[in-house]
């Protein structure tokens, strides 16, 4: 039974929360960290997927007026999600095929079952459902060198009004998104969800977590700092393209 590191960072800055995945990838590639599961609660922002069109997904005027940051993530497709300190996010970084993609998704459903919910994986989707409604979204990145990044969120509570105002989606979020609070009919703490998901990972993957830590290593903090320029840049946010190499030739 292998031992993984467990991290819980609490409420995090939007740019930091979206750059954690790339930080873990870089740290893991440099063999600075072991397999890690990290939980955090992103502060208010709009997340757009790796391939999303910001103009088509987000009400830019509303976000500007309300000073809501828009941050592009490393993973995900063409969608967008609103965070408002009510969603628990996580990032897992593992060697490819150890475990499989499907196993990783089962960890989430299994964790939610520990909370007494009938959670199921939606076929041909990254979503985890409870009673036909989305309660969790996941995303996976496969990277050169045999690495998986598995990220996702569990919707503890949800600001439907903010979602309707900030996103241009025509979907009725009240109909297809549910929350732990609604499903369990009570307040739910983040620590309770972390405990359940941790059990889900341990049971499904036959692993054991070491004692929960609440801070990153110095090396991780340094990498995270170096990534802030990218995640805060207009080029990354608008076009999903960025490198530390300056481009004088790109057509405007």
């Amino acid at each position, binding site marked *: 039974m292998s031992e993984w590191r467990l991290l819980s960072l609490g409420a995090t800055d939007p740019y930091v929360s979206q750059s954690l995945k790339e930080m873990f990838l870089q740290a893991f590639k440099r063999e600075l960290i072991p397999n890690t599961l990290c939980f955090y609660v992103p502060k208010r922002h709009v997340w757009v997927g790796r391939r999303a069109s910001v103009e088509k997904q987000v009400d830019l005027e509303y976000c500007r007026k309300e000073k809501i940051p828009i941050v592009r993530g490393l993973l995900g497709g063409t969608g967008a999600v609103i965070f408002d300190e009510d969603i628990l996010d996580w990032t897992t970084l593992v060697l490819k095929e150890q475990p499989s993609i499907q196993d990783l998704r089962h960890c989430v459903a299994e964790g939610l079952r520990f909370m007494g919910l009938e959670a199921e994986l939606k076929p041909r989707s990254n979503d985890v459902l409870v009673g036909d409604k989305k309660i969790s979204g*996941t995303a996976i990145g496969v990277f050169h060198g045999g690495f998986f990044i598995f990220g996702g969120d569990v919707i503890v509570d949800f600001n439907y009004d903010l979602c309707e105002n900030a996103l241009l989606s025509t979907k009725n979020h009240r109909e297809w998104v549910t929350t732990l609070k609604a499903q369990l009919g009570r307040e739910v703490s983040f620590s309770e969800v972390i405990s359940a998901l941790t059990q889900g990972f341990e049971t499904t993957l036959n692993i054991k977590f070491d004692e929960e830590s609440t801070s990153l290593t110095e090396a991780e903090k340094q990498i995270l700092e170096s990534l802030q320029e990218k995640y805060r840049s207009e080029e990354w946010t608008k076009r999903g393209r960025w490198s530390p190499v300056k481009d004088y030739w790109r057509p405007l």
Partner: protein
Amino acid sequence: MPLQIVQTKPNNYHFKTKDNQRVDIEHRNRQLVVTLHKWGEEASLEISLDMVLSDKHQFLENKIELENEAFKLRAYPIEARSTSDLYGDSEDMVQCHEGGVRFELVLKSKPSVNFFTIPIKAKNLRFSYQPFLTDEEIEAGHIRPLNVEGSYAVYHTTKKNNQYMTGKAFHICRPIAEDALGNKAWCKIEIDKKATCLTITIPQQFLDEATYPVTIDPDFGYTSTGGSTRAIGVSDAVYRAGSAWTMPASGETNYLRAYIGGPNVANCKAFINQKDSEGANSHGQIATKENLNCAAAAHWEEFTLTGASLIAESAYLLNIMAFYLGGIKETYAVYYDANGAVASYWESQASYASPESPWNVSPEATTLDYSIYVNYTKLAVKRGLFKGLFPRVIGKK
């Protein structure tokens, strides 16, 4: 195992790429001359740089180096790498799969001009420029790493399939200029229409502000796969893509291979259609095969297609579609290079359950070389046929 340079004569060196192709490095006429061979002696690319001349060279740490007052010029092997490792690209696409050679120029001080020209000699090679992606292409699911934008894919002028695979020999990536403080800028490369010289231009502003020395790193990578990707399947749509090719000889198919991948697994169908066999832009299907659970990581997927007849001088469309099994709004993709040789085809509303047959589709406005090829056995010329018939004819007389 790292690619190692071997010295054969005082001024002659070589190394072998992972696919056993030979790269010669020679100190000739006071210049450093590098020759990349592909498919034995079938195709080659020779590069040199006459602005760096020296009577002496050094062979140190697996690098050959010439030096004069203003410059250093080095040639050395490079390994397969990802765009993330090379320059921090979030796309993380693998390049130079079989290794390659870096032809590295070091500017000791600010040069009088911001460009330098590498004379090239190409044998049986076609150079295809890879333009910058437009916003529309990005939105439509195309992915092109930053060092592929403004680069050149190098293909055999006339051959592909069997041992030539996609026909791609090399990829000349867009170089990076880096100063002594680690500041970096993309350079521009341009190959003239006659393919006699490759010009590298460094941004003048970068040269003005740089702390010297400045290093420029053009890479000539060996690969058979395209440098860009295009979606062939998402969770709620199926796309069908392929390129046309005229068969030089008749034969029977063994298999078709496509270079594909995505964030999760996909079921894929590969097809061979005969171009315009059912009328203009109506391509009759001659073979198809489905592979289930094709891997997520980029790979060559092999579809067994045994015994389909291919006719000499007829054109065929090798094409593929995917039923993506992963999440919403993710894409499963096929690799390609822009500005291809013949014609390419794309269907945006394909049916995976009931693929169109014949495939009715017009060529794309911009031709793409999809990384799909077929392996076939050439039909032997039956020399005995006439021998067998002739005596009987004579006998009747």
